[in-house]
């Protein structure tokens, strides 16, 4: 069976249904056993504009998007104008016949989407299923799989709706078979009967948090993090989970601090602007040692920036945010699968060390769909760290919430757990939690807190290397940019290069020793990041003294892929650390 790697782009105005078409195709690709990477490009508006969904499907795992397309499904004229040029030779255009445009070449199918939708599905909006059916037919997909997908996707809207969509899709497929006079090179393989999950980075983060037993989330809506809170809000009736949309991000983080101190696993989800408001609360969590998970979905800044676009510009902000000095952990999952496990483990780190823990994503990871094998849920471990039992508590004369220990970790009792009071302050304090300005106690307390940083550093998730052994060039990266780097390295190594990606699932405490071991011998270290100042490169220099030799940066709000990385390196890259 030959490997294949196809991309389909569905373009149109907001509200035209490109998501529906892309979802049908994505789910169907996955059900043929294929791997998937599907990302959306959308404007911050509810109607109009030009949006697209690009779905890549291959017989092997893919973590980034391709340059070119095999199929373009165009719901508006802009899709033809902007994307026809992205087609590979022999690529096919399926476009809405109602657009009344000049035929864009021989390999094109004008499809009466709305008319067929109305005729066979009863409504013009069924044109979306018509388009999906036609695209599936042109790509030579297995018809029964498409029909199963439609049944599943629309079943929750009732069997009549599912049936109507099925008829519409069949009509699209029939129309394509009878009227498409060109040819398409796509021959979709059926590679496996194993079912995969299809989910976004945001959905994986939410699912991982639920798996970890998160009991409370408070947030304020902000793209691209809203998906996390909305997903969790939907589960509150089935799970012992409380959710509140706060009046602002200041309230959101303070609510979570309250919940965490009352005994719950608690989290917030936000983007850079919202996190700016949370900084004060973050500092409180640092002082009163509250375990808290902060999902920080990055988008371009400063300020409102570009709401629906992607960037990795908040790494050093998350690292340095908050008045005073206190320990924290920063994780940055690179794929949806990793997002699930990172979120699940973030609560353990937060509770074991009683610190705020960041899980940083970016819009590209947050909104992209990936195929993932079902998570082995019994592998999720819940470790609440050093917790005092009811029996131990009852035998204590008083409970000292901030007992000074060698590890810096003070065993926790929860408020209302027994008959001892728990005193939690925002001021500097003594072991019992009573405020103090005593210089000796202050120093001991600050040392105690910072010892937790040392303890965390001992079990940091090491950076991961992928590619050639004994590489001469290393691409240093984090977050979703990993996908582009991985593919760039594969392509370079196929040309005889010796390249490697070194990527960081955890950025703080910084794994300095491991980073040095991996990058020390390479002739060339190239930092690849979605920002304009090379923040990971800067962090590497700060923590190891090693400065990357150059950088590949992108900060136009659009994601990078392998070709971009290779071209930038070919052109000499940039050096942002003067």
């Amino acid at each position, binding site marked *: 069976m030959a490997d294949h790697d196809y991309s389909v782009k569905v373009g149109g105005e907001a509200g035209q249904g490109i998501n529906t078409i892309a979802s049908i195709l994505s789910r169907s690709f996955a059900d043929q056993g294929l791997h998937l990477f599907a990302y959306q490009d959308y404007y911050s508006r509810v109607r109009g504009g030009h949006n697209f969904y690009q779905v890549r499907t291959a017989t092997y795992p893919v973590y980034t998007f391709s340059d070119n397309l095999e199929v373009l499904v165009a719901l508006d004229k802009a899709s033809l104008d902007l994307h026809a040029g992205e087609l590979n030779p022999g690529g096919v255009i399926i476009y809405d016949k109602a657009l009344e445009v000049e035929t864009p070449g021989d390999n094109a199918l004008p499809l009466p989407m709305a008319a067929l939708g109305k005729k066979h599905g009863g409504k013009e909006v069924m044109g979306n299923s018509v388009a999906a059916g036609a695209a599936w037919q042109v790509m030579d997909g297995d018809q029964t799989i498409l029909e199963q997908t439609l049944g599943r996707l629309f079943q929750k809207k009732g069997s009549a709706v599912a049936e109507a969509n099925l008829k519409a899709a069949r009509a699209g497929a029939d129309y394509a078979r009878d009227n498409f006079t060109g040819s398409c090179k796509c021959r979709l393989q059926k590679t496996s009967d194993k*079912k*995969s*999950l299809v989910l976004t980075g945001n*959905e994986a983060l939410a*699912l991982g948090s*639920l*798996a*970890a*037993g998160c009991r*409370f989330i*408070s947030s304020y809506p902000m793209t691209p993090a809203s998906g996390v809170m909305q997903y969790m809000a939907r*589960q*509150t*009736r*089935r799970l*012992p*989970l*409380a959710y*509140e949309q*706060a*009046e602002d991000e*200041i*309230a959101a983080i*303070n*609510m*979570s*601090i*309250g*919940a965490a*101190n*009352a*005994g*719950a*696993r*608690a989290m917030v989800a936000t983007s850079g602007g919202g996190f700016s408001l949370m900084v*004060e*609360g973050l500092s*409180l969590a640092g002082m009163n040692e509250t375990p808290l998970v902060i999902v920080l979905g990055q988008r371009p800044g400063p300020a409102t920036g570009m709401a629906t676009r992607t960037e990795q510009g908040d790494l050093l902000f998350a690292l340095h945010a908050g008045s005073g000095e206190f320990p924290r952990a920063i994780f940055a999952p690179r794929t949806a699968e990793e997002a699930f496990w990172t979120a699940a483990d973030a609560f353990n780190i937060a509770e074991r060390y009683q610190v705020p823990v960041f899980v940083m994503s970016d819009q590209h990871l947050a909104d992209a769909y990936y195929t993932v094998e*079902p*998570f082995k*849920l019994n592998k*999720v471990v*819940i470790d*609440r760290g050093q*917790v005092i039992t*009811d029996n131990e508590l009852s035998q204590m004369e008083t409970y000292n919430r901030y007992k000074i220990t060698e590890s810096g970790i003070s065993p926790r009792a*929860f*408020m*209302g*757990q*027994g*008959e001892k*009071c*728990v*005193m*939690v302050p*925002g*001021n500097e304090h003594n072991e019992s939690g*009573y*405020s103090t300005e005593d210089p000796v106690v202050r120093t001991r307390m600050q040392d105690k807190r910072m010892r937790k940083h040392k303890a965390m550093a001992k079990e940091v998730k090491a950076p991961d290397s992928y590619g050639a052994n004994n590489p001469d060039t290393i691409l240093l990266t984090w977050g979703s940019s990993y996908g582009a780097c991985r593919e760039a390295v594969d392509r370079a190594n196929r040309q005889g290069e010796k390249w490697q990606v070194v990527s960081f699932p955890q950025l703080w405490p910084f794994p300095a020793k491991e980073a040095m071991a991996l990058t020390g011998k390479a002739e060339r270290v190239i930092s690849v990041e979605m920002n304009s100042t090379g923040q990971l490169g800067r962090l590497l220099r700060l923590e190891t003294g090693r400065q990357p030799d150059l950088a590949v940066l992108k900060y136009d709000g659009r994601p990078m892929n392998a070709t971009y990385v290779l071209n930038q390196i070919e052109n000499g890259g940039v050096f942002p650390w003067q």
Partner: protein
Amino acid sequence: MAVEPKEYNLDREITWCPGCGNFAIMDTLKRTLAGLGLSPHQVLIVAGIGQAGKMGQHMKANTLHVLHGRLLPVATGAGLVNNRLKVLAIGGDGDGYAEGGNHLIHAARRNIDVTYMVHNNMIYGLTKGQASPTSTKSIKTPTTPQGNPLEGLNPITLLLGLKASFVARSFAGDKEQLRAILEKAIQKPGFAFIDILQQCPSFNKVNTFKWFKERVYDINEAGHDPSDLKEAFRVALEWGDRIPTGIFYEDPEPRPVFREAVLGGEDKPVTTSEINPLDITEIMEEHL
């Protein structure tokens, strides 16, 4: 077993100035809680920053002494996940009406199950005498050297406008009334708001103990019916030679508290010291 007020004593230095209204308020609160049979470990005090916020350092109870103005969100989160605690929020006029103004509005809307005490001395004490949102017009303070250009905010009409479920005002110089109001407020499910007028002998030389004492009167004794919201507004507008205190408004019918609204009527804590993994198989399989 009866609870003694002294169980709430913390063997620590009290840092308030002599003659501060906070002494009377704290003493009354201890007596009220003990009188209701509540032990310190059953109570959570969420305290803000300011002299009033120091109640979170001067009383024995579970305490969350948090950031300036942020006590209500913290109380919201804590009370939502843990229903074994009687939650009180305590702060001053700067904390609640300036820094925390937005949170006050939404806490009232949510009807969180919290008794919120605002120690209102119409001045900033902890930071030494600056004007607060309730400071009198024309008062000279370090930040209003030419005299305060603004009218003081009326917290009672604000809260009545939000139709908060329990709206009251008391005075640190009337411990009997304060205790009676606190008792009602603490026992009432939902958001109970009490603005407590108090003197600040160090920094407020205008609104002194004597000044309040000569002006306050009890509206309920004067016949005000707390179920009458319109009448409550009329009474609450009075300020000057006479200052109305007492219960301005109380929901005639009980309304759902926030916890029930969020948790769908399941009145069990969503948290305990031991948590088990949630079974999310079904949710995960929606992605298959």
